[in-house]
């Protein structure tokens, strides 16, 4: 038989009357025990009041998102033996960012609202719906769409995202993956509108890669955001941020065209302007970091090669 051992599960419980408090449970587990099974054991054998969400226990439904030892994870995709520390203990808490409802159950409405904002559905051509035209899709296009459609709406990326917390105009990683998935789908007829919905928000991502780290499906929302940003020239009109984004993009092309490199100080000045740069310089001086801004950059020697590569680009 498989060897069992006793583990201690510390759960941060919460209800309206008692507020937050920690409670510990001892559970027998083996190397095949999933954390969802640990929770089910506690609930059916020890503490029926313990509250959590769980459904498929195979990482396709996205119900059991929580913090396990401080990390945003799916409980079903976390094995008890890999979660415990050297004292055989594991800590469970409700996800960050979302409002607590009960124990390990957060209120996910703000996550769903973000998803609905990107109009997450295909608007096919009428002639395809009627069957007059046969819409085909290459295997590589399908791969690109499926990559970002694999999102299971678990909410872990939004809970881990620092930009979501700071910037209420940012749609968040999952919604961007969803939005881009339809942009990439040749069967869809609303690409322009989608660029309109997504573009300003996309530039609010700081590319910190937290979403990439925590996604249990390897959806890589930050990559969807980067791919969306590449359509900045197709955005109708502009916003303050998009004006900056366009300057950012053209300066990068210009800088590489001239020197073969992205010259950070030049990029900074052209993107944010002199006033913002002056303010930041003052700050840098105060903190003793101005030397980094003054660092000398040398150009790439073989510029002909660079020009060949950049030739087709603007």
């Amino acid at each position, binding site marked *: 038989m498989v060897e069992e051992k006793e583990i201690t599960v510390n759960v941060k419980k919460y209800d309206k009357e008692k507020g937050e408090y920690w409670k510990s449970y001892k559970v027998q587990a083996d190397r095949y025990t999933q954390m969802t099974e640990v929770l089910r054991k506690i609930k*059916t054998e020890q503490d029926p009041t313990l509250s959590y969400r769980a459904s*498929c226990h195979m990482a396709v439904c996205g119900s059991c998102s929580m913090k396990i030892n401080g990390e945003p994870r799916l409980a079903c995709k976390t094995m008890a033996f890999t979660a415990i520390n050297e004292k055989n203990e594991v800590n469970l808490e409700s996800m960050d960012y979302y409002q607590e409802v009960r124990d390990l159950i957060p209120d996910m409405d703000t996550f769903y609202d973000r998803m609905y904002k990107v109009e997450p*559905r295909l608007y*096919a051509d009428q002639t395809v719906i009627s069957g007059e035209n046969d819409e085909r899709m290459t*295997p590589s296009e399908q791969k690109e769409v499926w990559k970002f459609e694999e999102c299971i709406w678990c909410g872990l990326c939004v809970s881990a995202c620092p930009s979501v917390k700071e910037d209420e105009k940012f749609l968040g990683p999952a919604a961007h993956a969803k939005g881009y998935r339809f942009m990439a789908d040749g069967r869809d007829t609303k690409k322009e509108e989608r660029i309109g919905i997504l573009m300003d928000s996309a530039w609010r991502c700081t590319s910190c890669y937290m979403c990439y780290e925590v996604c249990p499906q390897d959806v890589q929302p930050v990559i969807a955001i980067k791919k969306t940003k590449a359509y900045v020239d197709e955005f109708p009109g502009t916003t303050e941020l998009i004006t900056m984004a366009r300057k950012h993009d053209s300066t990068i092309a210009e800088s590489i065209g001239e020197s073969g490199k992205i010259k950070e100080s030049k990029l900074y000045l052209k993107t944010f302007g002199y006033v913002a740069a002056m303010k930041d310089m003052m700050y840098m001086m105060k903190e003793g970091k101005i030397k980094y801004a003054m660092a000398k950059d040398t150009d790439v020697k073989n510029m002909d090669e660079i020009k060949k590569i950049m030739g087709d680009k603007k």
Partner: protein
Amino acid sequence: MEKKEYDAVVLGGGLAGLMAANNVADAGFKVAVVSKVFPTRSHSAAAEGGIAAYVDGNSDPNDDPEFMSYDEVKGGDYLVDQNAAELLSRDSGEIVHILDTWGAPFNRQPDGRIALRYFGGQTYPRTRFVADKTGMALLHTLFQHATGFDNIDFYNEYYVLDIVKDGNNVNGLVAMEMKTMDPIFLKSRALLIASGGLGMIYQHTTNSYINTGDGYGIALRSGVPLKDPEFVQFHPTGLYPSDILISEAARAEGGILKNNKGERFMAKYAPHKFDLAPRDIVSRSMTIEMREGRGFEGGYLGLDLTHLGREYILERLTLAYDAAKTFANVDATKEMIPVRPAQHYFMGGIDVDITGVNSDLNGLFAAGEAACVSVHGANRLGSNSLLETLVYGKETGKTMVDFLKKHKNVESSDGVDTIVDNAYSYIKRETGEHFGTLLNELRDVMWENVGIFRDEKKLTEAVKQINSIRKRSINMYVTDKTTNYNTEVFNALETRNMIDCSIVMATAALNRTETRGAHFRDDYPTRDDDNWMKHSIAYLNGDAVEIKYKPVIVTKWKPEPRVY
């Protein structure tokens, strides 16, 4: 109590419910979709391998919808209503077209058409797929499409208590908002039960934790019968020991089952179809191998994919590979995946005809696993559950539209308070038994005595024990008295539903003295068409299970021996 009025209420946010809701809403009616989980958490998401379909111009040139129907009839061991199987095959191509226009990201052939592969029991390859997460991809497609309608209201994380009746007519249902524990009366003249299956009744199941037979429970309590409740599918390849599903796609793509001697034992039991024989046959063969000492220690067999090559496995069987890696610590590109049979699907369900109508209660419809249209008979073929949810979800949606045009909502609100009082009785009680004790006992009894191999002794014992659990459940009580997201209350109510389903299943299994499809009786090991080519229709009247019969509808195919 809050009251909201709709034309139709759909219980369940999985594929069948959403398909019907899309259709009813498209006709302009006001629909409420009620689900105890956010719809994308529904068990439809767990379907892996694919959806079977005959698509004109994109199928094997020798294939024909007729062959597809025949495969279903034979696969279901002649308990299939043949007109239902014919409709399933006929409309399968249209369903794939609709899904395509709604954005389903099916895998493609090099020329851009939708790709297809073989599945168990198919004469020609018909299964369309999205990697091996087809259910998840289609569920998201349908849900996302449904969120585009202004006349569909979603009641997510609302738990259904019971059906409200006005005489013999549907008058909606009472549900409880889980977050606030506030009851709500959702009034409507049409109710679709599409709440999925009941796997949690069994100790070993591939099903989600949420599959607790709620729809069957509320139907039985409203005097509505279950059809063929003795037929339960056990899937051959549950991952050992967590019972996570390893898709049939693994065998469809060339995976081979092996015993502890390294033998491909299916050659012995199904000399033509081998590992791709229907699931009931493979599960039984595996159990025999293990019984006769050819299993591995702990009780499992091997599923060998290693000869398929790493690249192929990673592209076509991602989920199987990931599941084996994450949950059993096995690298399927290098070693065999440990598997054993586990409960997977309930062929029985709420008795409805080919249009989704139940004839016991006016205005009641059912679709998907919650229903028994009799399209799967005694054993469902792989790739047909997704197809059924969509074809019959759509068909039932059409029927509901016709019904809604002809009828009006009634005025009364009778019976609503009693339903809430009944549910509260578990909260009000201060002593008694916990749901967990009863539930764990129930799951043991069902697995041991109403499982893959059955006989009179086991089933008589099961009926006795379930009756005793059912008596004790009257004194079930809830320790948690708080009023926000009190899951213990819902677990107790789920347990009530599971116990009601179990007594009906065990009694019907004891009653059917033959072997047919997934219902295998050691004491009656052969099919008995003279006496048993008929559907069981099981009612729950108080403590008594009453079984009536309906004939099987035969259009073309006379019963013949089932050899694979």
